[in-house]
């Protein structure tokens, strides 16, 4: 009854190929966007912005980027932290060295630097596959860590190696308030997410998926592996680079190379795997899961313990947070190895048939 599709006729190819062919999905999606853009700014507190919404939105963009590479093109990457770092440091250097550029221009341009680095580190993917490629992209991670720590020029010779983002302004408006920060990050994620959604539905995306599913077969039917793999690396790194620049400029404000270390790469990989490989929705769900759950557990455990009369110390909270978080990841992967997005699509199929299953 919720999904009553009776009467929805598709009379053109455009209607049949729409992102959301079902009217209810379109309405829900628009409503969600309206809530995110208009309702959230009315109700969210500064804490919710800074600790929850802004990191989730930015990491969702990074997860979408990694999903292009891992989920759509089937190339395992452990270098996403470094690509975020490339974006962040490129944006920083553009802002410092070309002071007339608006920070937003710097953020967008930084994506192209990340894409170039991504292509360079994607070249080995033409010869090596699977776990071996993961190891090769790990090299990108270590190279990034090394470069940001050692090449003094990249950090403008600051004595400590920690750098600061310039103030966010556009047309004379100051965008440093948490609401503005959130809207900036959300706008970037939505626009780029929509772009990616369209790319993966087009011929480029189909080439990626052909390569993912069986590269030899894809090559035989005329997909050029070099072109397909390198475009995947470029698009993926572009998105991850932009998210890195946002992470630095919008979320952190001041950062050191450790902000983009191997743990960040793993975190993004977990988001993609838990959210669902090959799904934009999955990337967003994965980001929400990975960012929110630890914070939620950390805050919920002490009052929960108090209900039973236990006083839980800070250390115990932190330890149980890790344990429960780990257990939940295992649980979700056992229940649904294809991720949260798959859970949703199963639920949706059920809803479409409900209340008259075959």
């Amino acid at each position, binding site marked *: 009854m919720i999904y009553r599709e009776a009467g929805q006729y598709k009379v053109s190819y455009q209607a049949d190929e729409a992102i959301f062919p079902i009217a209810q999905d379109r309405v829900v999606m628009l409503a969600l966007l309206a809530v995110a853009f208009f309702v959230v700014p009315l109700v969210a507190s*500064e804490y919710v912005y800074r600790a929850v919404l802004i990191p989730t939105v930015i990491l969702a963009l990074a997860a979408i980027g990694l999903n292009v590479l891992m989920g759509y093109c089937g190339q395992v990457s452990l270098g996403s932290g470094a690509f975020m770092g490339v974006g962040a440091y490129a944006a920083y250097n553009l802002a410092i060295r070309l002071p007339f550029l608006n920070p937003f221009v710097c953020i967008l341009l930084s994506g192209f630097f990340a894409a170039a680095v991504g292509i360079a580190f994607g070249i080995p993917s033409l010869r090596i596959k699977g776990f071996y490629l993961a190891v090769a992209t790990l090299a990108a991670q270590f190279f990034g860590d090394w470069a940001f720590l050692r090449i003094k020029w990249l950090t403008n010779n600051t*004595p*400590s190696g920690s750098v600061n983002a*310039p103030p966010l302004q556009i047309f004379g408006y100051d965008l440093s308030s948490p609401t503005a920060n959130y809207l900036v990050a959300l706008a970037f994620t939505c626009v780029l997410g929509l772009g990616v959604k369209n790319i993966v539905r087009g011929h480029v995306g189909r080439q990626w998926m052909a390569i993912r599913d069986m590269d030899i077969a894809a090559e035989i039917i005329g997909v050029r592996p070099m072109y397909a793999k390198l475009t995947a690396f470029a698009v993926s790194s572009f998105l991850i680079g932009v998210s890195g620049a946002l992470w630095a400029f919008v979320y952190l404000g001041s950062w050191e190379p450790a902000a983009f270390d191997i743990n960040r790469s793993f975190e993004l990989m977990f988001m993609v795997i838990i959210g669902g490989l090959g799904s934009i929705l999955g990337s967003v769900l994965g980001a929400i899961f990975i960012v929110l759950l630890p914070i939620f557990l950390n*805050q919920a455990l002490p009052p929960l313990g108090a209900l039973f009369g236990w006083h839980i110390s800070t250390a115990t909270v932190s330890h149980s947070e890790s344990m429960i978080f780990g257990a939940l990841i295992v649980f979700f992967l056992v229940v649904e190895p294809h991720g949260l997005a798959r859970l949703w699509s199963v639920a949706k199929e059920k809803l479409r048939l409900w209340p008259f299953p075959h």
Partner: protein
Amino acid sequence: MGIRKAALLGAAIVSAGVIAATAAEAQNEQFIPGLVYRTGAYAPNGVPFADGAADYIAMLNARDGGINGVKLTFEECETGYATDRGVECYERLKGKGPTGAAYFSPLSTGITFALTEKAPGDKVPLITMGYGRADSRDGAVFTWNFPLLGTYWTAASVAIQYIAKEMGGFDKLKGKKIALLYHDSPYGKEPIAALDVMSKKYGFEFLQIPVPAPGSEQKSQWLQIRQQKPDYVLLWGWGVMNSAAVTEAGNVNYPRDHMIGVWWSGAEPDVIPAGDKAAGYKALMLQHPAGKFGVHADVEKYVISQGKSLAKPDEFGQVLYNRGLVNSMLGTEAIRTAMAKFGNKPMTGEQVRWGIEHLDLTADRIKKLGFEGMIGPIKVSCADHEGARLSRVHQWDGKQWKVISDWFTADDAIIEPLVKDTAGKYAAEKKITARDCSKES
């Protein structure tokens, strides 16, 4: 904005109704947040500091009922030494209590850098006692940062002075080799600028040897030290890196008494894991030594013996536990200073900031507080957010830390120009106009 304010007001009224029972009492409370790390790679050092900081506040509450009748509330948040979690904790705690957080002490250079960007907007001061940005002692630019008791440039200067004294004069430094074995993060890199300047001034060769975080693996670095044979090794580590460095020094037989750690590399968790290999190792002191002083009697009486402390018995009186006490003492004394001007009620972050900037602890006052023998007099001002540039050296004899030197004062002729230079660069980058300190009252 009207709707948002109305919504907020509505929410405030509802929540006010819910907590009405406790509201009357809560109005007269001063909230102090604690960013701690009791888990992770740096926990051995984070735990005693967190216990000391919490115990001093608990002691003030039990003994004096807070400060001037205003009860202190305290809440910890676990950062695990990670910058993003630290920022989350800061956002969570900054608005607690009737007047918001009094001050933050993140005990992490990385988190300090991130909070330095946020503190001016939120009007919450940062007390980064003995860590953080060395240039943040310039209060004209860094209005909200207070690296009280010493910065890393102070530490670098005192370390070189001590080495010169051991060798018999600054002229003996010429042609010598001094290595800096450092944690490869903003923390470890802070002293490099000052050491560079001093190596040029005194003519010693300065070797930089980075250790990737967390620093438990140092074989190749110590191989390099064995090959290069530096006359002294300065150790700028934290957490497990310290004990690993001392152990490796023992393995390659580098003389331990030619190793000088910074004050974050000179506590019990840094040497005890190394066992006998640690004997002879020296470290700078953030003024205070290990051991028990006047204040410890009160903490023992009002907190420890009441079972209100998380500290283990052997932790009580250790270097980092004492540092936690000093940190909370400086913070609460700043609140007291602010109350003298603004009245005996909970202080806002802005008022506490004024209090820290006008903190003036004379030897007499320090004695009354029970900290005699731990720290020297400290006087903070707009131009000098550090307050004191003193340090001593202590040595681990295999069982305990023994103070082996007199007080050294950092050479401001070296540090001052560096501070001006980097603080000016920061101000230009962030488009900050420096305050005119001659006009501040």
